[in-house]
């Protein structure tokens, strides 16, 4: 496989052909914020938080879906990028009903972490306060659409790793939402195996275990690497890795 050389933030790196900019940056510990991306799942480029600047291209491109090319000159952190990342997190905050203080995922939430990371101190967009539903029909778990950021991690993990395909995305634009069993109650779906993978990969408090209270929902994502490694390499690593 051909080797590509590229420049990131003024330093030269080499990468395998077909690798994403994000993969190269992660290998070399160059920080880029992500939300929809999760190692072990397919890449969708939905959240646009990982946008980077590439010399000669007027558009900002997501690092997770953009493949490396020979001679690319990339910037991963500029005032413009930081501004756009802050805007993205602010828009996510304003279009849902995110109330950290009483959320089950408070202090264990990737959206909350991102807000700190990108320096979001206030949201200048008007909050939409959408009238979203909470689906508590499942015996073990709850889906609170108020806290969903449509990252589709749940859709992907259920389809790609568990193979049950309980979740889908329905609707368009602001009416877009995650649905279970083609639009019914989660508890009524016949495909759910109750494995809980969707709950663990959800970055916010949208999916959680029934019975948890404020701040109690810790998401343990180690299982994903464990399963992927076991399947691909026939190696059974520690889940804490």
């Amino acid at each position, binding site marked *: 496989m051909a080797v590509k050389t590229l420049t990131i933030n003024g330093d030269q790196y080499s990468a395998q052909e077909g690798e994403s900019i994000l993969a190269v940056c992660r290998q070399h510990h160059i920080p880029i914020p992500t939300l929809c991306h999760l190692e072990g799942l397919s890449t969708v480029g939905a959240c646009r938080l990982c946008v980077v600047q590439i010399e000669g291209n007027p558009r900002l491109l997501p690092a997770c879906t953009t493949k490396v090319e020979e001679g690319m000159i990339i910037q991963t952190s500029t005032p413009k990028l930081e501004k756009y990342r802050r805007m993205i997190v602010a828009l996510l905050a304003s279009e849902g009903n995110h109330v950290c*203080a*009483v959320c*089950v995922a408070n202090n264990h939430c990737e959206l909350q972490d991102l807000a700190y990371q990108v320096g979001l101190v206030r949201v200048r967009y008007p909050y939409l306060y959408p009238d979203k*539903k*909470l689906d*508590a*029909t499942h015996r073990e778990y*709850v889906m609170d659409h108020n806290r969903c950021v449509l990252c589709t991690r749940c859709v992907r993990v259920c389809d790609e790793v568990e193979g049950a395909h309980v979740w889908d995305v329905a609707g368009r634009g602001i009416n877009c939402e995650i649905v279970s069993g083609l639009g019914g109650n989660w*508890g009524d779906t016949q495909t759910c195996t109750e494995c809980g993978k969707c709950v663990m990969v959800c970055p916010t408090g949208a999916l959680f275990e*029934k*019975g*948890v*209270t*404020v*701040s*109690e929902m810790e998401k343990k994502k180690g299982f994903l690497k464990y399963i992927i490694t076991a399947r691909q390499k026939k190696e059974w690593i520690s889940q804490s890795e």
Partner: protein
Amino acid sequence: MSTITISPVTRIEGHAKITIHLNAKGEVEDARFHVNEFRGFEKFCEGRLLWEMPGLTSRICGICPASHLITSAKAGDDILSIGIPETAEKLRRLLTLAQWIQSHALSFFHLSSPDFLLGFEADPALRNIFGLMAHDKEFARRGIRLRKFGQQIIEFLGGRRIHTPWSVAGGVREPFTREERDTLLSWYPEVTETALMALETVKRINEKFTKELSCFGNFHSLFVGMVGSKGELEYYGGNLRIMDSAGNIIADNIDPRDYHKHFGEASESWSYLKFPYYKPIGYPKGIYRVGPLARLNICDHIETPLAEQERRSFKALAPMTEAVNNSFYFHYARLIELLFAVERTEQLLCDPAILGTHVRSKAEINALEGVGASEAPRGTLFHHYWVNENGVMQKVNMLIATAQNNMAMNRTVRQIAMQFVEGKSIPEPVLNRIEAGIRCFDPCLSCSTHAAGQMPMEVLLYDVNGALIERRST
């Protein structure tokens, strides 16, 4: 008719105003206590999960979040239909008493004592906790430390002083450690001495303010609160007892689940605060009071020695044929409860069961309706929830202590206005007396309207034609 308005009312928790209406002769005809804040917790909790309710409802208030937390968790226990572990109940009791200590200390030392120790005529700029520090540093310091002790217990139990989510349906989230227990025990005997010192102070106040004593909410009403199975002062469990102004028990051993059979809630267009009343008598004659004055009246005894001794002195304030009907004695009753809370927490801290590690029971939804009740610092608090089979809230009703004192606070304001307001203006000391009448009840308007915020108050004075003569803020 003329009207005087006091707005905002200060040194209380929430937003309120008072209007005083004068007749054609310029005499006080009526006075009203208006609560002008609104948040609507009962409505927006609909659609949320039962398990979230303690964390959500504790946000109603920054002064007594622990009371909402405990009461909500108890309503959750009722819906899960489970008993909680012994350690969990003792820890919840400890939290409830810690709430009493910090809230009662706040009410007396920080909010009310400046009026009594500096005088109603003192400069308003100095008539506060800072003025108190300048006047009697040691007294103020001890009061602040006593409140800190209560807050310290809450922090050890719940991880933080305000809005801890520690108590949950089925018990509590974390056990208590030996180190924390030992640290708290090291606060004794200082806290007991402070509670006794406060009691001596309030007894001197009772003797000194004779003019205020006669009109600060001195009227007949019912008294409502919880008592234990042996008639003792109760704060966490127990059943309801209702006493009339002559000291007769007119209803006893009422399961708190049946509160709605006994108490109704009326509304008036001029206040966001509802007017609860005793149903068998009806509105507005079914006026009742809750809180320290009611609890001290209705209980047969207190289980701790020093507080029991004080309770007997308290009962001696009224003739044998009457309950203690004077709202001025709320302060005295509150400080007796403070002493009880200090004594009882020491007993609980010395109980080995409090260090148990099994603190949480788990269950699914086993009932579609549940009621939680406890004695918050300001009186009996009820949370009543209806859920569907998945635990999603369908309806919420909360009956708050301050709301239950609403009619009594209105009557107190009227009584003080009639005694002190003369002519078409209100001198500042009179304004302050009207507010002080309200402070006897230690109202928390954030809770009672399920709303939050600071609590300035204003007084408006209207003439016989309804024209505003004067607006006074404090």
